[in-house]
């Protein structure tokens, strides 16, 4: 073993030590360029603002930003998009704590204890604990990326068509399984996305499909306009149609109180951070499960392990820290599965994959094994973004409170104009903007009727991969090929469990409650 360790790095056993060390320095060096750092700074400002405005999600911001990052160099573009994501995870805690409204879905669990703490006059303390926890979670997630990125990609390189198809099914069902219990509507949304992906040329024979004689559709439905329409325009339209003319916006709490925790409280924070980081890292590795789910699971875990259970939900600094640490710790795992497997870790990563494909980078098993330095570039971008976001969070939080008083209408105008110009700038095509407008209306329909947009985007991105691998498998070895692959079988089994277990568990609990209700009724009748 010792000679092996001297000649290779444990994480890159297939590479000789000088090559591996070169990958690390090359990866880090790519970020430490003044222009890349400048783009990280730009992404951080955008992300912080995005996070602070309720209703503007990180997915929406990354989708909008993808419009103007496509003309950049890939590393610079990735720096902007990833930093927006990181900074939004810090900024979104502010409205969660001060007006009980999550800035993005990732901070839903922040409201459980953040707002009660603010009502007790401890908003400053809550925001500091949240920022520290978020930074700790992020660093933990980055370690996961650095440790597992290349080994996971190496493992996935053994995948053939049956395994790749099973992997796509796994990614889609995981996203549907966590679509707030809307399993059938999630499946319909996923099928809609997969159907959109069939427009254009057939991936195997090259025959035209569903182009309706429109020349621009020969190359398929352009996915960035679809993403901007579904996540950007649709959200603004939904806010618009439900807007009440004379209703005033929620006023944020502006009495922030103390900012730094004492020694006793600091000890409790560290324990919560540990719970959050552990939970978030594991949850993040599961494709399509994002920070919102991780935050809630971690909040529950922290409560179970706490000596102060009674404080949870009423203003527990432990609950707040565990939830926020966990939701950011998912990011490293999410980037890992996205890049190493080509299956998006969450909806932001689905958007990111769309941009990467336009840059000519295909996320998947070959990416990290052919370009190991990219792992360290990504890790470094995330690290720099985290440090800057933490610093800005601790210094400028007071002024961010004022942002919450801005009217939603100003944001609508900014987002709408960015949707239009950003979409046009992708390929200077008016057709793309019309696609975006149509998808905005479809997205509004989906929002109003409970269809999650995430599976639709995932279906659009993964569609060609799913179809070509399924057909190759069936043409090559028939359905038996799936039965002959243990990896495919395991992935199918997990996918089936993700779809079937939540409703079965719910049915069991509902039946239990009904029986308990009957028992109570009987005990009243029979004294």
């Amino acid at each position, binding site marked *: 073993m010792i000679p092996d360790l001297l000649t290779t790095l444990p994480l890159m056993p297939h590479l000789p030590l000088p090559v591996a060390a070169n990958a690390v320095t090359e990866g880090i060096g790519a970020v430490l360029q003044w222009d890349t750092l400048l783009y990280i700074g730009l992404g951080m400002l955008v992300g912080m603002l995005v996070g602070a405005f309720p209703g503007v999600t990180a997915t929406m911001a990354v989708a909008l930003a993808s419009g*103007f990052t496509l*003309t950049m160099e890939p590393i610079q573009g990735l720096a902007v998009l990833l930093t927006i994501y990181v900074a939004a995870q810090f900024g979104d805690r502010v409205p969660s704590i001060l007006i*009980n409204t999550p800035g993005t879905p990732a901070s839903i*669990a922040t409201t*459980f204890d953040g707002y009660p703490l603010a009502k007790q006059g401890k908003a400053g303390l809550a925001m500091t604990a949240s920022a520290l926890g978020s930074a700790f979670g992020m660093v933990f997630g980055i370690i996961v990326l650095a440790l597992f990125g290349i080994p996971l990609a190496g493992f996935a390189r053994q995948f053939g068509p049956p395994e790749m198809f099973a992997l796509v099914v796994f990614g889609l069902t995981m996203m549907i399984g966590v679509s707030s*219990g*809307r399993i*059938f509507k999630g499946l*319909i949304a996923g*099928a*809609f996305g*997969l*159907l959109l992906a069939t427009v254009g040329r*057939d991936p195997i*024979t090259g*025959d035209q*499909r*569903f182009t309706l004689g429109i020349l621009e559709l020969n190359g398929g439905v352009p996915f960035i306009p679809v993403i901007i329409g579904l996540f950007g325009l649709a959200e603004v*339209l939904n806010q*618009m*149609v*439900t*807007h009440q*003319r004379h209703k005033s916006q929620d006023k944020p709490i502006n009495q922030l109180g103390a900012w730094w925790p004492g020694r006793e409280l600091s000890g409790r924070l560290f324990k919560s951070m540990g719970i959050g980081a552990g939970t978030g890292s594991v949850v993040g590795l599961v494709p399509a499960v994002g920070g919102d789910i991780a935050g*809630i699971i971690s909040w*529950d875990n922290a*409560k179970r392990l706490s000596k102060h259970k009674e404080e*949870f*939900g*009423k203003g527990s600094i432990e609950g707040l820290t565990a939830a926020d640490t966990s939701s950011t710790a998912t990011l490293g795992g999410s980037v890992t599965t996205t890049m190493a497997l080509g299956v998006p870790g969450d909806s932001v990563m689905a958007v990111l994959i769309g941009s990467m494909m336009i840059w000519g980078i295909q996320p998947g098993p070959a990416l990290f094994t052919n370009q190991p330095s990219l792992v360290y570039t990504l890790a470094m971008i995330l690290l720099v973004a985290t440090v800057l976001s933490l610093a800005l969070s601790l210094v400028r939080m007071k002024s961010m409170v004022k942002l919450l008083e801005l009217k939603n*209408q*100003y944001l*609508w*105008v*900014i987002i*709408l*104009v960015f949707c*239009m*110009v950003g979409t*046009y*700038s992708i390929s*200077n095509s*008016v057709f793309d*903007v*019309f696609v975006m*407008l149509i998808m905005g209306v479809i997205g509004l*329909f989906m*929002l*109003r*009727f*409970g*269809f999650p947009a995430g599976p639709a985007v995932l279906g659009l991105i993964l569609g060609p991969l799913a179809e070509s691998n399924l*057909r190759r498998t*069936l*043409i090559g070895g028939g359905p038996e090929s799936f039965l002959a692959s243990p990896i495919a079988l395991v992935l199918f089994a997990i996918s089936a469990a993700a779809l079937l277990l*939540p*409703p079965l*568990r*719910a049915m069991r609990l*509902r039946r239990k409650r009904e029986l308990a209700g009957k028992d109570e009724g009987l005990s009243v009748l029979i004294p």
Partner: protein
Amino acid sequence: MAAETPGPTGTAERPGDHPEELVLLKNLPYRLRELIPVAAAIGLGLTVLVLVGDITERGTGIGPRFWPSMLAWGLIALGVLLVFTNVLRGVRPSDIPDDMTWWGIGQMVLTGLVLVGYLLLFNVLQFWLITLVATFVLLVVYGIRSWKVLVFLPVIIGVILHVLFIVLLKVPL
């Protein structure tokens, strides 16, 4: 899990509970409303099955029609399943969105008209000019009457977009 947060319809949802566990709403209007997504799923499935006939098929076996047809049949099956889960059984409170307002619908229609007009004038008039006018009109549509906002916000947005897209990214607008 003691903490309760208000759900989208004002009902209490407990963090961590699976939404399927909530009490289902049995009101007829809510359940009938679910026929719209059912119709959308089945309608889309049937449309795809009709359009699949236009795809050239070379020989028999697993060709370009196979995957879209499979997805279309899947959509139809899922639409039928929705009838059982959402129309006959009941609707979860979180599936009921906030009410639409006539004011909001009017704003959306006007927004659509302004955006289409804005798009059609791309490459026809100066970009900064149409952006200035479009943002001004949108702000007026949304009920903003402060002259400072009506003057400065369109100018700021116009300048940022001009610098970002035309100067830096060289987009031909």
